[in-house]
Each structure stands twice: as structure tokens, then as C-alpha cells.
């Protein structure tokens, strides 16, 4: 009977006001690929951060090869044999691949701190070769290497620490399709070497191809661990989704009109991929895709944050959107996914934040029209029920939900015709979620056309009149309202375009 290389027992993690994980048990055996699945916010990343030494658990023990361990830092975890490869690599683009693997390591230095270059290059090449990266010249600077090679370097770095456990966070998200297979080969080699791999991914197809076991988390708790042969895609999705309460979502009975407000033709997402779709007046169009699908790029293109080719037609007229100001002039508004970085300006007041996009209209010449600004900000505070003593309060002190309402409000005040919402309820509590959903619904009823980009399936399903599913920069499916459930949605989003006769 083989012993687990890693046991996480009774792991709980509390953040101020939130219980992110409760009593999670997780076991990992040598030479297995163990998929970790769950919806956004299910607790995957919290669990992996605990395992890789980013922060400690509130409760619970971690045992590595039978011994209880505590990780003080990611480096500490690495030294003890647990390495993580983040979606965004931690590489020095200005240094050679070999140095990246062995940066600042005592075993590579000789007398007087002299680096033993030949040993370093040899060892690095050996490690890279051992994971099938033979074509990589470890003397080259990392900035010259492709994404797959960079990933191999990250893996080699982990191996250089004699990793027993390797966590791979969405390893295929950044890879082009043809390199995913190469990455699988690497994973198989690692497996053969007895490394235990935690494979965090949303992509069903990959999970069934590469994983031996799968553990599903939901709402901070472990649902189950199964052998991959014991589950089907359907059953996995059911485990992830659970029983959903649907009263969060308002009833959408109204039919949107046929009037096309926005048409997008061959809008380029990168050099090789482009999408076309249309948005009707008063419609909520859901756009769903797993990380790397390109849904964020669509928003960036429509709002002028990124340039490219293709036609955008607003109310039938072709428009050129080269910067956010152009989009604003065409009455396109964008509520970005990262509220803190892109949405609010923290030390500034609610009033200043709400009025920011609209200031040219709220001025007399260069001077601010304080009366109208005040009126407008009060109006939207009431309309969106932003809870604060007054609108002079700094947005710093608001809850996530109220901050998000400020971001939505600042764009509503600009009277847009098209509203792009990306992750509108990220980091927002349930009560505020329901409120925001109510707002979105009401806005659509009032005739606003909404493009809803979200990675939260219930929200996309609950709100959208139509749902477009994106997979690696391609629109692979369209669902009408009521047609999709989470299982179908996820299944569509984790596969390339279905072949004929395969419609669900």
C-alpha cells in the first residue's frame, strides 16, 4: 500500500468576514496527476496558496511524506519540495534559462561567490532535457523563448528543488492549442519520475486526458475526490455546480427588440483570431469562456483599450474606436473586471468617482458645476442604493458591492446605449449580487443593451437573453434564453467547436 506524499488535513482559512475554506481534506500520491476543480470562488486558489506557502491556514495540518510541515514562504515551500507554477510566470526575462532555474542557489556557487557556470548549464540542460525540452538552449535569455518553453523552464526550476509536489495553475491558459499536447508530454514525464501533480484547470477535455483523480471544491468545502474513470463530464459539472438557488435572478420575460444596436464584424482578438456578433436593443447578451478564451479582449477592443482590425457598427453606422474617449462618445460604457485597479480611484470621494466620466458635461466651461455634480451624484446614489453616510465619503471605506455600484453608476450617468459589464459581481457578497442583478435587469428593460462578460455561470445563465460561448478566441456556440444549463455551458466552453450532429 503506497503512502500519500502529501496530506492536507482539516484545512480552514478565514479572511476578515469570509470563510474561504472549511475543513478541507486533500491527499496526493506520488506519480499521480490530481485535478482540482471548482467554480470561481470555490476555494481552489486559496487552497493552493496555502499549499505553496503564500499564507498559512487558519486551521489544519499539512504533512509532506508523513512529516508535519509549515511553510514560511513560497521559497520555503519550494525547498521542502512543493513548487507552484502560476498562470503568470515568475521569470527573469533578462537572464538565461539556466540562470532562471538556478538563481541565487548556493549549490551553484563556488569559492568567493563564483558561479560555476559549466555545472549550472549542464544541470539546467539536464533538467530541461528530462522534461522533454531538449530543443531549448538554456544559455539563451528567457525573453527569446516562447510560452511553452518558458513553462518548461518553470517546471525545470521546480524540479531543481527536487519537487515532490508540483502545482500547475491553469497551465494551458497561455498556451496555443498546438503546444498543449507538448505540455501534456511534459506532465507525463514528470509523472513517470514520481512527481505528484496538482492540476488546476477549468477545461474538461484536458482533465479527462491527463488526470488520474479529481477533487471538486464548492463554496470552500470539498465535495468529493474520485478516480477519473468513475466520473463523467456530466457528473463532474454537477458536483461543481451543486443545487442552485435561482431567486437571485429576476424574471426576464420581456423580449428584446430586433433593432441591432451593436454589430461586430471580424473583430480581431490577436493576429489570427477574430469574432463577429451582434447586440440588440434592450438585450442582455452573455459572453462566457474559461480563462484564455479571449472574452476580455473583446471588451478591450470594443472600448478602445486595444487596437486591431475589424468593423464595429453602432446603430448601423461604422465607428472607429481607438481610445476609451471614442467609445464614450459613441455611448459605449465599460465596467472593467478589476474594480480596484481600473474602476475606482480609491482616496477620492463617491461624488468624484461617480462624476468622473461625465465631467465635461457637468462643467460650465472649465469650471465644475458643483450643483449639478451634487445633484447627479445624489441621484445615482439613491438610484443604485449606494450605502454611505453621504457622497463625500471616500470610496475606500465602502464595501465591495457598493464600490461596484459606484463603478456602474459612473457609467450610467453617462447615459450609454451599450453597457459592457465584465465580472460585475466579482468579490461582492450575495446580497449586493442580487441588487446588482436587479439593476442590470432594470437597465435592460429601460432599453439599454448589455454585453455581460462573466466567468460565473449562474450569473450568465440567470441574466442573459442569449449566451455566446467562446473557446480560445472562437465563438463556438450560441444558446437562447432558457436553453442552457451550467453543465451544457461548461461543456461547450471547455471544448473546441462541436462537430456536426453533436448539438446539445
Amino acid at each position, binding site marked *: 500500500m503506497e503512502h500519500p506524499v502529501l496530506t492536507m488535513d482539516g484545512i480552514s482559512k478565514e479572511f476578515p468576514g469570509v470563510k474561504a475554506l472549511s475543513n478541507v481534506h486533500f491527499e496526493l500520491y506520488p506519480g499521480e496527476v490530481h485535478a482540482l476543480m471548482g467554480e470561481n470562488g470555490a476555494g481552489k486558489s486559496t487552497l493552493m496558496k496555502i499549499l505553496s506557502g503564500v499564507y498559512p491556514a487558519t486551521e489544519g495540518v499539512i504533512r509532506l511524506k508523513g512529516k508535519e510541515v509549515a511553510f514560511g514562504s513560497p521559497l520555503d515551500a519550494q525547498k521542502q519540495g512543493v513548487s507552484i507554477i502560476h498562470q503568470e510566470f515568475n521569470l527573469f526575462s533578462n537572464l538565461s534559462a539556466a540562470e532562471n532555474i538556478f538563481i541565487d542557489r548556493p549549490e551553484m556557487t563556488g569559492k568567493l561567490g563564483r558561479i560555476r557556470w559549466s555545472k549550472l548549464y549542464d544541470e539546467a540542460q539536464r533538467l530541461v532535457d528530462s522534461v522533454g525540452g531538449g530543443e531549448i538552449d538554456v544559455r539563451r535569455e528567457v525573453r527569446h523563448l516562447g510560452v511553452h518553453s518558458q513553462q518548461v523552464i518553470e517546471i525545470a526550476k521546480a524540479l531543481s528543488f527536487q519537487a515532490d509536489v508540483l502545482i500547475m495553475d491553469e497551465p494551458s491558459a497561455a498556451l496555443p492549442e498546438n503546444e498543449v499536447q507538448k505540455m501534456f508530454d511534459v506532465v507525463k514525464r514528470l509523472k513517470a519520475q514520481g512527481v505528484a501533480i496538482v492540476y488546476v484547470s477549468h477545461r474538461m477535455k484536458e482533465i479527462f486526458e491527463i488526470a488520474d483523480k479529481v477533487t471538486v471544491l464548492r463554496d470552500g468545502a470539498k465535495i468529493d475526490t474520485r478516480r477519473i474513470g468513475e466520473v463523467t463530464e456530466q457528473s463532474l459539472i454537477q458536483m461543481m455546480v451543486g443545487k442552485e438557488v435561482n431567486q437571485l435572478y429576476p424574471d426576464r420575460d420581456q423580449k428584446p427588440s430586433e433593432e441591432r444596436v451593436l454589430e461586430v464584424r471580424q473583430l480581431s482578438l490577436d493576429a489570427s483570431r477574430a469574432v463577429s456578433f451582434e447586440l440588440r436593443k434592450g438585450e442582455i447578451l452573455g459572453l462566457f469562456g474559461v480563462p484564455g478564451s479571449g472574452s476580455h479582449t473583446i471588451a478591450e477592443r470594443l472600448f478602445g483599450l486595444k487596437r486591431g482590425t475589424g468593423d464595429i457598427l453602432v446603430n448601423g453606422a461604422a465607428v472607429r474606436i481607438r481610445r476609451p474617449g471614442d467609445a464614450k462618445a459613441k455611448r459605449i460604457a465599460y465596467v472593467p473586471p478589476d474594480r480596484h485597479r481600473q474602476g475606482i480611484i480609491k482616496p477620492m470621494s463617491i461624488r468624484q468617482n461617480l462624476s468622473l466620466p461625465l465631467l465635461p458635461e457637468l462643467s460650465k466651461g472649465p469650471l465644475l458645476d458643483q450643483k449639478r455634480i451634487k445633484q447627479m451624484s445624489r441621484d445615482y446614489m439613491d438610484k443604485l442604493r449606494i450605502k454611505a453616510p453621504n457622497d463625500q465619503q*471616500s470610496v475606500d471605506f465602502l464595501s465591495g458591492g457598493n464600490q461596484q455600484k459606484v463603478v456602474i453608476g459612473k457609467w450610467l450617468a453617462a447615459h450609454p446605449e451599450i453597457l459592457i459589464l465584465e465580472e460585475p459581481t466579482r468579490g461582492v457578497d450575495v446580497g449586493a449580487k442580487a441588487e446588482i442583478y436587479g439593476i442590470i435587469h432594470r437597465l435592460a428593460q429601460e432599453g439599454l443593451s448589455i454585453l455581460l462578460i462573466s466567468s460565473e455561470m449562474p450569473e450568465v445563465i440567470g441574466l442573459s437573453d442569449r449566451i455566446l460561448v467562446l473557446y480560445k478566441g472562437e465563438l463556438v456556440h450560441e444558446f437562447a434564453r432558457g436553453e442552457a444549463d451550467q453543465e451544457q455551458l461548461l461543456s461547450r466552453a471547455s471544448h473546441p467547436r462541436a462537430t456536426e450532429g453533436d448539438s446539445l
Partner: protein
Amino acid sequence: MSMRTIGLSFKQNKLLVQLLLLLFILVLFSILSPYFLSVTNFMNVFNQMVEVGLIAIPMTMIVISGAMDLSVGSILGFSAVCMGIAFEHGLNIWASVLVALLAGLLCGAVNGYLIARHRMQAIVVTIGMLVMLRGLVYVLNQGRPISGYPDSFYFLGQQYIAGVPFNAIFLAAVFLLAHFVMKRTRFSTYVYGIGNNEEAVHYSGISVVRTRFILFLLSGLFSAMAGVFLVSRLASAEATSGTNIELDVLTATLIGGTHIFGGRGSLSGTFIGLLIIVFLRNGLNLLGVSVLYQAVILGALLLIAVGNKQFNRGLSR
């Protein structure tokens, strides 16, 4: 709510500390030098503060927006010499003043173009301009001073109205105007916004490029204006005019409570910072302390001002 009051008392504390520092300097030099505490001396100080004061206005805005302009002293010298040369070539003195202002605007535009439009590092670009313009100043006038302006021109820097120097009145008026701008216009909201979160401003459909460009343009214009006043006050345009003025300007700005990483600051604070600097300089002058020693004290003050902010920030977090 309590957080807010803490924030407020903090702000008041800062102002209080600045005023106390000013008072301390006034009292100290009143004791140390018999010439310090007199109307004549004070008017003299006000007469001398116009150059630093004028440049401190756009500098405060630029630092609030999260950047810095180290080329102001060289722009001052460059504009002053341009004016002198234009005048020597027979241009009317007021037309020459216009030439100076245009020269300043041009320098500011170059800074702005590189920094705002092409997102180059403000510090390096303005250091480059600092060195290059100073070099050009020497190239233009071969290092000799240019003087001999008409009397009407000296009005700007030497005339007193009801016992108060004209240039000080002018500075006060510009400060009030700028203060008004920073309180009442949408431009100021953009400046503070950029300093706090440039990306969010960009995502609000506001042109960050344009705002930054205008800031550096203003900096060029005000530096040139300072150059004109300096020439009028000293009756001569010299190649060294404005050298090291950035130390005074930055110290005044940062002592005045403007945060080195941007986002926070006020012109009223800068004004007090300015008074601290000019009275300190004047007092030290009266005590016969050499200019380079004064630089030591100013440099130390700069370090303390920024180091202290750091401390404040740590507390408020």
C-alpha cells in the same frame, strides 16, 4: 466615520506642523539676526520669492500627478537668454518677453510629447532636457550676461506698489488663481485622479496623455515666466540663471505636504512650503551662510520632508 475624522485631523496636523515650522524659522532668525524682523526685509523676501513660487505651482500639479520635472531651472535660463537675444536683435522688449514665453512653452511641449505621448520616464527625459538646455544656453550667448533693458521692463521685478513688490502681488494673484483652478476645475480632478490611479482615469474615457501634456506645457510656461521676472529683477540674463532652482522648488512642494508618489497635495501647502524656504534662505543669507551651505540645509530638509511622509503613510495605513 471614525476613519474619516482621523484623516481630517491628520490633514490639520500636517498644516499645523508646517505653520509651526514656519513660525519657528521666523522666531529663530528674528533672534539670531537684528535685520531679519523688519518690513523692509520681509518685502525684500517677497520680492525674491517670485521665481521659485511661480515654478512651484506647476511642479505641485506635476508631483500630484505622479511625475516630476527636473528641467525647470534650465528652461528658466533658456527662456531668459532667448529673451535677451531677441531684445539684442532689436525686438521690442514685450515682444521679447513673448519670445521667452514661447521658448518655455516649446521646451515644455518637448517634455510633454516624450513623457505623455510616448510614456517615457519623466525623470530621465527632464534630466536630459536639464543638461541639454543648459548647454544650449551657453551655446547661444557664449556665457556672457545680457543686460541693458528699458526701464519700463524693470517694473516687473523691481517696482513696489504701496510698499509691496509688484512681483509678489503678481505671484499671490497667480497662486490664488491656480488654487482656484485646483479646487474648481475638472482639470484638477483629472490631475488628482491620474496621481491616484492613472488606469482608472484612462478607463473612464479621459485622455491621460492630454492632461499630462498640459502639465508639462504649464511647467515650461511658468518656468519661462519665472525667467522673465528674474531678468527684470536682476536686470540681466545670465547663462547660470535658474541653476539649482529645482532644489528649492521641489523642497517647497514636498515640505508643503505634496506626496512624492502623487495623488495628494495642495497649492496652499506648497505656498507655506515656499514661505519656509524663502525665509530660511533669507535668514541664512543675513547670517552670512554661503549659498552652498544653504543647499546642504535644503537638501536635508528635502530628505526629512519625504522621509517623514513615508512615516505618515505607514501610520495612516
